[in-house]
Each structure stands twice: as C-alpha cells, then as structure tokens.
C-alpha cells in the first residue's frame, strides 16, 4: 500500500503544468521507480501525484533537421538502449543506461527521471555530460534551454522550478560526430546496484588516430553532483596517443574531483577509482576510435 494523496493523469504537457501550478504539494510521477520508493519510505508520503506517464509528446527519440538527436525525457532506459539512432550515433548512452538496476527497472524507469532526481550516483548524467547535452525545460511561461552541466545544483537539487517539466534532451551533431566513448560503472554487484563511481569518456582522434583532438571526461559520485573534468580534458588535448596519457589523465582528474567519505565508500577508495577508471575509460574509448573494439 502506498501512502499518496491523489493521482492525476495529465493529458498533455500544458495540462501537466497547469495541474502542478494548481497544487504546490504535487509531485511529478513518471516511471515511478524513485518517486514510489520515496512515498514508501515516507519522504513523499501523503503527497499528490501528477502523472506524466501517458503524455505521448514526452516519449521517443528522434533526429531533428540539423541532425541534433532529441531524446524525450519519458523514454525508458530499455527504449534508449534498443534505439537504432542511439546505437548508431551515441552508443555510450545506451550502454550506460543498460547497466542500471535490472531488466524490470529499465523497462519503467526513464532518463528524464534519472536527470531530474539530481542523484550524484545516476548513470545517465556522466555520458550525457560528455555529449554536451542541452536540456529544454518548459514551464508556465514557456520553454528555456540550458546545458546539462548547469542543471545540477546540489545533492538532489536541480535547476527546475515547481511547475516546470523537462521536455527534451538534445545532443548536437558536433558533439557526437567523430566521437567515441566509453562508460565504466563501478559497483559492488554486476546488477541491481548503484555506482560507487561512474566514469564516462568521449574522445575524438586527430588524423591517423595519433593524437587526441578532443576528449571529455565526466563522473558520477566524484562530487556532490555529476561533474565534468575540464582540466583533465585540456591536459591531454592535442597530445599524442600513448600509455603515458592514462596516468596523466587520471592524475589531473584527481585535482578536480571532490569525493567524500561515506559509509558507501571512503574518499581514499573513490580517489583510487577516479584515477584508475579515468585511464581505463580513456583507453577503451581510444581503442573504439581506432576500431580495435572495446577494452
């Protein structure tokens, strides 16, 4: 038995926004895999729910005219992994979200929920951060856009006002074309687990695959929010591909991250993972870029 007040099935994006604006106590429900847990735990007990589950306009993946990929937020993880466009243009995202929970969860939980929860351990943000993803947020006064990197404000806190909905996630062609990526989810179990550390890399090689034209690095659980490591990226940009890169990449990342000790993992352990996984993810991404298959 779940202790919630009312549930309203919104008929469209404007209807959902109206329903939310009419009830400051209301909570957005989509896949429900986080919200219902919080209802059960008591943290959202008794709250009214506005469901956006049935809004067609919030679901699906498409390519816009300029070849920007648009992922709508109510798309489930399973749909993302199985999507042909994702597999062709941004396969790292499909691989990352396929490591979340188990099959049952991946068929209800959505990428929008994964972002809007603002959990530092979420698996989709690191990859989307390395793709320079941009969000479209729609509220009572219309739509606004902002970079995913500017969306996360603190643990469980995102740049979203009550009455606003995440309505699209966009990845521009310049941010995926020619890039090869890799995501490492480090967790204690091979399934049904949250990341002790998540590490995403995208890399674009220069001519003949001998230099790093561009690299991007992002983490889950390396700080209170999902984060990019711009200094580490800059430190290897233009450098020759080779074994020494990995150590340097990891060491530079360590200067940017802010992991903490909790009962889930110590700071020392997380730092070791940050160092080690940065290099491993970069190496795997370079191997993919060279057509050598994943590490």
């Amino acid at each position: 038995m779940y202790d919630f007040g009312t549930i309203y099935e919104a008929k469209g994006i404007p209807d959902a926004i109206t329903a939310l604006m009419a009830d400051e106590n209301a909570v957005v429900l989509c896949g429900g895999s986080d919200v219902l847990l919080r209802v059960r735990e008591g943290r959202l007990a008794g709250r009214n729910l506005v469901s956006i589950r049935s809004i067609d306009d919030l679901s699906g993946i498409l390519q816009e005219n300029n070849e920007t990929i648009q992922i709508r937020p109510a798309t489930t993880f399973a749909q993302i992994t199985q999507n042909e466009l994702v597999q062709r243009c941004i396969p790292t995202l499909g691989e990352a979200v396929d490591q979340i929970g188990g099959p049952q969860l991946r068929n209800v939980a959505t990428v929008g929920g994964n972002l809007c929860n603002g959990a530092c351990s979420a698996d989709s943000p690191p990859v989307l951060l390395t793709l320079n993803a941009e969000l479209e947020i729609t509220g009572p006064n219309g739509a606004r856009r902002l970079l995913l990197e500017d969306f996360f404000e603190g643990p469980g806190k995102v740049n979203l006002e009550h009455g606003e909905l995440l309505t699209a996630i966009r990845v521009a062609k310049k941010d995926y074309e020619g890039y090869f990526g890799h995501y490492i989810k480090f967790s204690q179990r091979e399934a049904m687990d949250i990341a002790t550390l998540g590490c995403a890399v995208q890399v674009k090689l220069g001519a003949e695959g001998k230099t790093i034209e561009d690299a991007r690095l992002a983490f889950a659980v390396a700080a209170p929010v999902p984060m990019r490591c711009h200094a580490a990226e800059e430190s290897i940009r233009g450098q020759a591909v080779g074994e020494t890169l990995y150590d340097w990449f990891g060491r530079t990342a360590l200067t940017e991250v802010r992991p903490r000790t909790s009962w889930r993992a110590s700071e020392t352990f997380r730092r070791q993972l940050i160092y080690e996984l940065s290099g491993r993810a970069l190496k795997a991404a370079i191997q993919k870029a060279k057509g050598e298959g994943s590490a």
Partner: protein
Amino acid sequence: MGIGQSLKRVDAYEKVTGRAKYTDDLAPAGALVAKVVRSTIANGRVLAFDLHKASLIPGVVRIFTCFDVPDIPFPTAGHPWSTDPAHQDVADRKLLNERVRIYGDDIAVVVADNALAAEQAAGLIGVEYETYPPCTDAEKAMQEGEHPLHEACPDNLLKHTVSQAGSFSFDALSKEKDLCVLQANYTTQVVQHCHIEPPVSYAYMDSGRVVVVTSTQIPHIVRRVVGQALGLPFGMVRVIKPYIGGGFGNKQEVLYEPLNAWLTTKLGGRAVKLELSREETFFGTRVRHAMAFSIKSAIRSDGRLVAREGWARSNQGGYASHGHSIVANAANAFRMLYQDEAGHHFDAYTVYTNLSSGGAMRGYGIPQIIFALESHMDDLALAVGADPIDLRMQNCMKEGYVDPGTGITCHSSGLLECLEKGRKATDWDSKRRAYQNQDGPLRKGIGMAIFCYKTGVYPISLETASARLLLNQDGSVDLQLGATEIGQGGDTVFTQMAAETIGIPESMVHIQSTQDTDTAPFDTGAYASRQTYVTGMAIKQTAEQFRQKLLRYAAGYYKKELENLDIQEGFLVEKDPQKRIGPLSEMAMEAFYSLENAQHITAETTHHCKENTFSFGVCFAEIEVDIPVGKIRIVNLLNLHDSGILINPQLAEAQVHGGMSMGLGYGLTEQLLFGEDARPLNGNLLDYKLPTSMDTPELQARFVETDDPTGPYGNKSLGEPPCIPVAPAVRNALLHATGVGINRLPLNPQNLVEHFLHAGLIEAKTVEGGRQDV
C-alpha cells in the same frame, strides 16, 4: 527409487505453479493489521508516549505500548527447552520493551483495519525517552558499567567459557628451535539471512484457544514460547506452519508470534496479521554475529601443530537470543578440526551491545571461526613453507577421533579423499606453482579451506523426533512429522526414507507438509542440519514398525509364514521362492473393511537420539584479482563434501550450490553497517550487497560418500556446511595471488584497495596542494 536416487521434489509442481500456499496467502480477508512501533534511539528507556494524533487516524483499532504488556520476560531462541534451569535460554525481553536496547526496538504496536492506517499511526506516535550513549563495539561494551543493557550482566558479558586441553607455555615453546610461533587477529562482519519471505504470522482465537499461523522452522517450539510469553498453558496454543519461503536460522527464533498471539487475545479473538518489511527484517530480527578472533600457534618446521591459543569475542547485540551457544560452537570447532601435539587454550566471550541481535544463522558460529582458523592455517603454511593441503592433511581430525569436550566421535571421514580429489580436479599443484611471483595489475591465485561440522545438537542439547505413518485404503501411506520443510527438500527425502524402509514406491507416500501442532507429532524442527539424521532415525524406526504390522496382518490374511513375507515395490511378496502375492491395496481394503479383523494399521514412534557424527568438506577457490580497483573475480569455485550417503544427490547438489552462494556473499560483499548511534545504515536490498545471479559464477559441487554407521541411512549433516569454507578459501586464494593476507571480511573492493595501498601494490597518489591521500 529409494535412497540415493534423485527423486523430483515432492513439492516441485506446487511451488513452480504458484499453487503452494504461504502464510500471507492464507490470512483471512478482513484480518486486522499490526504494525510495530520502533524506537528511534538504540539505548535508553521509554518514559512516555503521546498517542493522541495516532489514535485519530481512521481505521486505527487499538494501540498498545510497552506499559500495557504482561510483565513476563521470555526467551526467543528456538532451542529445545532445557529441564535444567542452569541451561535454559535467557529470558531477557517482554512482548514490548520499555528498556530500549537496539535501534528499532519494539516499544509499541498499532492495530488497524488496514496496513496504511497502521503505518501512518505508527509514524505519529510521540515518544519521550531517557537516552544513554549507544555502544556497538563488544570490547568497549565490556568496559562500560553505567547503563548495562541487562541488569543481570553489569559488565555486558553474557558468558565466558574456556576450551582447553594439555598444558604448554608459549614462552617455553618459543625457545625451541625448529618451531615457529605466529599470532594474528581476524574479524568477521554482521550479515543477515535475507530469506525471501519476511517474518509473517497471523493469529486468531478458536474455541478459546489461540491459533498462530506462521512462517517458522520450529512450530512446536513456537507453541511453547507463545505459552511462556503469554502465561498460557501450552495446550491453549495451536501453531500452524504452512510452506515457508526460507529461514536460514532466522526462523529458528520466536520473533513476533507471541506479540501477535497476545494481540488477538486483546481484540476478542479477531484475526491479526503481523508482517515485517524487508527493512524491519534487517535490523529487527536476527543477524549473524560479528566476531573478533585472536589465534596464536606454535608449529614445527615439518608442519606439525604443537599448540594453539586464542580467543573469540562475539558481538551479541541487544538481546541474548541463542546467546553464548553460537560462539561456544565456534570454540568447539577450533578444538575439533585440528589436534595439537601439546594442547590448546581458547576463550569465548559473548558481549551485549546495542547492535541488532545475533541469532542462529546457517553454520551457527562456524563460518566465523573457520574464516579465522583457515586463514590462519594458510598463514602458517606460508610461514613454514608447507603446502596448504598437506598441512591440513597432517593436522586435521581423523576417523576415530573422540572429542574431549563433547564426547562426539568421528565415525566416518571422507575429508582426506575430498582433499585428494580437489587437488586433482583443480590442478592444484601446477597452479600453485604457476601463480607464484606474478606482477602486473591482474593476478591469479588458488586457495582452499576445510571444515568439520556436527550433525544435530546432541549432547549439548536434546535430540528427539517423532514420526507417524497411517495406512490408507488404497495401500498408500500418510507420513506425518513435526520436522519442517523450509525449502531445503526435507519433505522429499523424508518421503524417500519412508518408501525405502516400508518397501513401497514414493508415489505411495503422502507427506503432510503443513505442521499443525494439534496433529503433527513432536519434533524440535529444522536447524543444526539435524533432520535427515535425527528425524530420519524416527522415520526409519517408525517405518520398520509399520512394515512389521503390515506383514503380520498379511500373514494372517493370506495365511502365509510371517518370516517368509516381504514388501517390495508396493506388493506383498514371498521371499523364497520369490513370488508376488498381491498389491498392498488388496490387503489394505481387507484391513479397513474386514468383518472379522478390521483395523487401521498405523505406527508412531519417538526416537530419542543420543548420537552425533561429523561431516566434512573443503572449498577450492581460484580467483583473478584486479589490483588497482580491488575487485575479485571467481574463476572457479568447487566444494567437495563428505555428508555420508546422499539421500537425494540432485537435492544435495542444490543445497551445496545455495550454500556456496551464501558463502560467496559472506566472503565478498555482504555486511550490515551501523552508524555511531547504532542505527543501521544499509538495511535494504539495494545497499546491502546480497549477490545477484549476475555475481554468481558457475558453482561446482562434488561428494565423497562415506557410509556413516550412526546415520539412519548412512547420512550426515549437509544443510549448513556448504556455506562455511567459501570465504576463507577465497581469502587464501587472494593471499596466493598477491601475498597480501586480509583478515577482515568482507573482501570487498574498498577493503582490498586499502590493504593494497598499505602493502605498496597500489601507489598512493599525491594530488595538487601536496596532499597525501592515504
């Protein structure tokens, strides 16, 4: 079929089709729902409640607090009662407790007509406490005296016992050359059983008696404890045990049945259901005791153990539960598994703290001591340059051993054969050589660990079991037992035993799976890997008597010589010359409806078992460790067991697989964590790392079948043993792979990385600002 055949589980179809009914399936519609109100402190006293807000929730029927319950302390352990007051279980709690000893202690209960109202009301109850500082550490708890958890134990020491034999002095020994002395500490963590079905019961009154339907391993013991806790004559309590979704020892404990029984008596006999959530199950039931060990050994360069001394400190948590018997069992295994030339000395302490209470869990103290002892044996092997298998063969218990502490005799042992077979199957010798002196981030290793395990609890406690066989009109038989099927396959092997001894096919044996204390004969239940042994003896004895009754009736009916009659495959036969006389069904109809000699042929006996025997086994683990991230991958895992004759090889193998999986979780990932305030931190299945199927490698189980002279069918214990040796085998493989011996469970990545940093296998990274990160 019969003994030694892989008969399909008798409950297989019911369980896989979902027709099997479990406690919650049977609860009557309209049953009231009880929700326990739990303390939000771990140490203190309840001074007062404010029930006003809670009582206003629609649907709330009654709220009872710790100030309302009978002033009767009662024990919760599912042991047979000891008629000797000195050996009785500790009665240290009431139905609800005013003195708070653990976080989430039972301080009040809400009864409502639905679960949501009960939960809402429970959350609205105001509680005023007097709080004391919580203590989670057993060593510290022994030093504190201001607020002992139980008045009877001012230093929080529940009990201290000593096991010793021979006389020796390490001072003198250390002067001998050719002798190596080694001391180390080992620690194990708190884990939980994680049975799928949570503790659940419902209780109602019928004709003035209290009926409790519950998911339990021990229905007859529940009956007694409910009677004790409520001050009711035991005959006024009836306990029914349907199918159960796992117990692993947590349901060898009388947890919430007494409270539930009391509630129905306060509510006019209306049915009340009490089901725990997963979170409540983690901290509010029982856990495996965390233990700390010290072991010091003197060993000769030829590998002979000369003397050992050590201690174990068992963290009991807030309530005595099974009390000292668990660490005492660990001390026994320390003595039994290896025999020292000069002697041993071992101190065992059980200490109350504010952690969740330790109780029975598969292996009963042995997984803890075997982790310590078998880790230590590999440390010794390394110190004297011995092969770990050879060292064990040289020093382990052999056939004919008589334990000085308990008198238990080693009637049969396949341990040496298990070791030999495992050595070959794993290619041990060449892998031990091949994996020496590796470098690089990925390294392999192979390790092993052995154990011995008793079968049942004699002579420490009573061993008794009863069986009843009733002839049906078609010649089939009903088999009624007090022993319980808890998922292990008990009903199937009991069916095989009865069929074998009577001489009928298993299809002619109908076992009653549900125990109802009104009709099930007395048996103390499923624990201590005892049922195939002790209940098996009762079945064999009863079936022999039943068979004799059938033969006697047949001799009269068919006018044949009794001595020349036999029952085979459901037919009465003459032995010499071999000839079928007729099916049992023919004789059964005569026995039921004869105008001259009608009788219901039945047999019922109790077997008072005054015997015990050792089973043995070994785990071999081959691993690959990813050093920079501290992750162990199991390459190969093999358990070899001597559990005597296998009644059902397929079920035996399944039992071993389940145990190995539990052992892997214990070794690699599982730990229930508590904060400084003794609040559980990860009491849910996301944060508590129970392995999934994705984490479980191919598991290999093999057997060496000895024919134990004391086992009813040559069989010995098997239920608990498979989980015991896995963790130390993995730990020893890691030692082999890296040279780093880790003496603290679980061997999770953080633990490994910390040790690898310390050992210099991982370089500590200095970051900007000159900060050293280790």
